[in-house]
């Protein structure tokens, strides 16, 4: 009996190893920091274009754009993560991300400074983000990893794209 459960455990861990050993992340920069998102959630990368503003929403939700006929919201990642806002330039990039929410695919654009690379990482090397207390909100952060001596912050796309409920206006 015990033997049997042992073998299933081994099978399971073996399976996990094959699945999870490495994965690819798209890395981009916000100021001097480098961030990464799972490449499977990236739909496309676009240049910044003016958005239509949406009234009475959090400041980091910049507005919506027309992406080949569907209305896609654009959020500013700097502002979402409480990094100082910089003006948009010709080099400002929008990473269009997808997430599955209630069995529906949701698409959302995220404004970043620039896209840098596609990195392949070994899951085992990912460190948990340290707890910064109240200074930094690390709920969107999956972990940290170092690539060529640089630290890359891996983001959790599902949590990132989950919009907060707007508090009532009053």
């Amino acid at each position, binding site marked *: 009996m015990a033997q049997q459960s042992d073998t299933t455990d081994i099978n399971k861990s073996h399976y996990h190893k094959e699945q999870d050993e490495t994965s690819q992340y798209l890395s981009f920069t916000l100021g001097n920091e480098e961030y990464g998102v799972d490449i499977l959630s990236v739909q496309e990368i676009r240049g910044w274009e003016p958005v*239509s503003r949406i009234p009475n929403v959090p400041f980091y939700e910049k507005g*919506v754009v*027309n992406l080949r006929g569907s*209305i*896609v919201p654009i959020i500013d990642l700097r502002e979402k993560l409480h990094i100082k806002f910089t003006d948009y330039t010709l080099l400002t990039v929008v990473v269009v991300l997808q997430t599955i929410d209630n069995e529906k695919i949701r698409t959302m654009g995220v404004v970043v400074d620039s896209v840098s690379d596609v990195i392949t990482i070994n899951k085992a090397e990912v460190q948990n983000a340290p707890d910064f207390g109240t200074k930094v909100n690390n709920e969107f952060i999956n972990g940290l990893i170092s690539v060529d001596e640089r630290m890359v912050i891996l983001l959790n796309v599902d949590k990132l794209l989950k919009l907060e409920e707007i508090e009532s*206006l009053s």
Partner: protein
Amino acid sequence: MSIDMSQFHQVFFEECFEGLEAMESGLLDLNTGDIDAEVINTIFRGAHSIKGGSGTFGFNEVADFTHIMETLLDQMRDGRRPVTQPAVDVLLGSVDCLRAMLTAIQSDDKVDTATVVIYKTALEIELNGSAKQSIPLESAVEEDDIETSDNEAEATEQGWFIAFSPYLDLLKTGNDPVRLFRELAELGEYTVAVNTRDIPDFDDLDPEECNLSWTLTVLGESTLEDINEIFSWVEGDCEFDIQALIKKEAKATPSVKKDKPEPSIVPVIDSLESLPASLDVVQRPSNTIPSSNIDAAEEVLVERRSGVSSSIRVDTAKIDALINIVGEVVITQSMLGLVGENFSMDQLAQLKRGLAQLERHTRDMQQSVMNIRMLPINFVFSRFPRLVHDISAKLNKKIDLKLVGESTEVDKAVVELINDPLVHLIRNSLDHGIEMPADRIAAGKPEVGTIELKAYHRGGHIVIEIIDDGRGLDKNKLISKAIEKGLINENSILNDKQAFELIFMPGLSTAESVTDISGRGVGMDVVRKNIQALGGNIEILSELGKGTIISIHLPLTLAIIDGQSVAVGEETYIVPLVSIIESVNITEDIINKVADKGETFKLRNQYIPIIRMHEIFNVQPKDKLRANEGVIVVVERQGALCGLFVDELLGPHQVVVKSLEANYRRIEGVSGATILGDGSVALILDVPGLVRLSNNRLSSTNPSL
């Protein structure tokens, strides 16, 4: 060679459900006493094609079941069998059962064999029970029918018809049916027929259980009390139903004869009722109509709604019109192509003409594609005769449902979403609106209550009205109830309209008792919310003692709207054209302020509140110095006017409504978004939402108000 039959299953099921619907509506027509050979034919055809199809696809249990129905219908069709209420009820039940079977097969579920057996048995009883009588009439023409009925009438003296179906454990309580029959025999001439259909296989037979049921007739001068006395011994241990045998009118017209319930068939229904009990199905039949019918009807409604979205059936004429237009577009396109190939300035007029043509065709094409999405409202209405039939029987009310304007067309999305609110409203009318027959007579109204379900187009809207001639809403009762619940201030004075609005507040029910027909499920507040979500509104008009009119206004389509684009600062918004009354240029001097906050302006003797779009949407005005110069778009919201202050009118557009929620979220004051000619996104304003937003803002900036 084998063909994968499963690829045809979807089509087969669709056809079956259509057939079932046709059968159901046919049967309901029969119910109202309107016996038409064509109607019976339609029902028969429905059953026949279901039988054929299910046989082909190897759904033998469906085929077997339908075969019995078909046999019954065939005899009715040939006039060999009178169309009776009980028979129709059994058939209606069988339609439900068949639908359940098909749904189960479709979703690979297990078929509820218990129910199937019940209805199969009922059908067989119906078939055999009255076959004895009908055999001699088989080849008889109608005149013979009358004669026979006359003979029957003479033979049938006054007496009683009793359907007696004991529960399984009757014998264990020490009762013996034989003793009962012996006592009955003392009352007069009596006949008894036993129904042995429930007897299980020998292996499963429990000798201590009573698996038999009987139908008895007692002729003579005995009274109901006499019979009740005999059966009082077994009360609670059986189902029994007593019907008076009334001497038939001599010289009856053929249709009268058919209308009259055949007493000999009544027991079939009763045994049908007792069957669930004996099969341990948790259903307690009460009246002559099984209570399960209503639940079944509701389940059917739910099931059908979920099935609606898969595909739609389109009138060929609509497709032809579309193909025609597409042909025109192709011609125009090739013409323009030719012009463009070697373009010189002298062809400019031709080019312009071509472009104008293209524009017209595009518009036509858009319209006819939208037209394909339009379904007659009958898709919703057709479900209600059954609902009304079942519920009114349960409530012992007499109700006539009139459908008007069933062919009024409305967008498919609207059709799907309007069903639930309508079911709720109709149930309310049935339960609370229409009074009991006795009360109606006392109030000097016809015994039969009327509910009218009416649909028509008005402007860019479809209007659905539910009109009943019931007791109406009691304004004072509503107000006192609302005060009691603390929903309104004790001293508030409300006009009729405001008082009726109270009914939409959550937690307010005027019904003294909550019944199982209404008072559960969604409330009126949910009804209104659903309708508002569709971009419509709902109004109530009512007169105490006379009746109630509930009217629902809905947009014809949710996909394309006519809009007016307006500029507010740097932003462009779309105001739905249907809500715009007019637009006026405004200057500072015509704006009046109330308490320094609320702004109004006077439009033809009416002060209209102003909503500044810049403020509620936090948009920077283009020119701060001239903040009071702009245009006021006067919009209507549920009868009240208000003015939207914008910078500029840009022009009318037909806009395709895109969902903001698909990727984003709901925004107060915005009903959706659209893509403008230059590819940018413009928000479509939601007038009721804007008013709410503006009111919230006013009350939050001035809490003392």
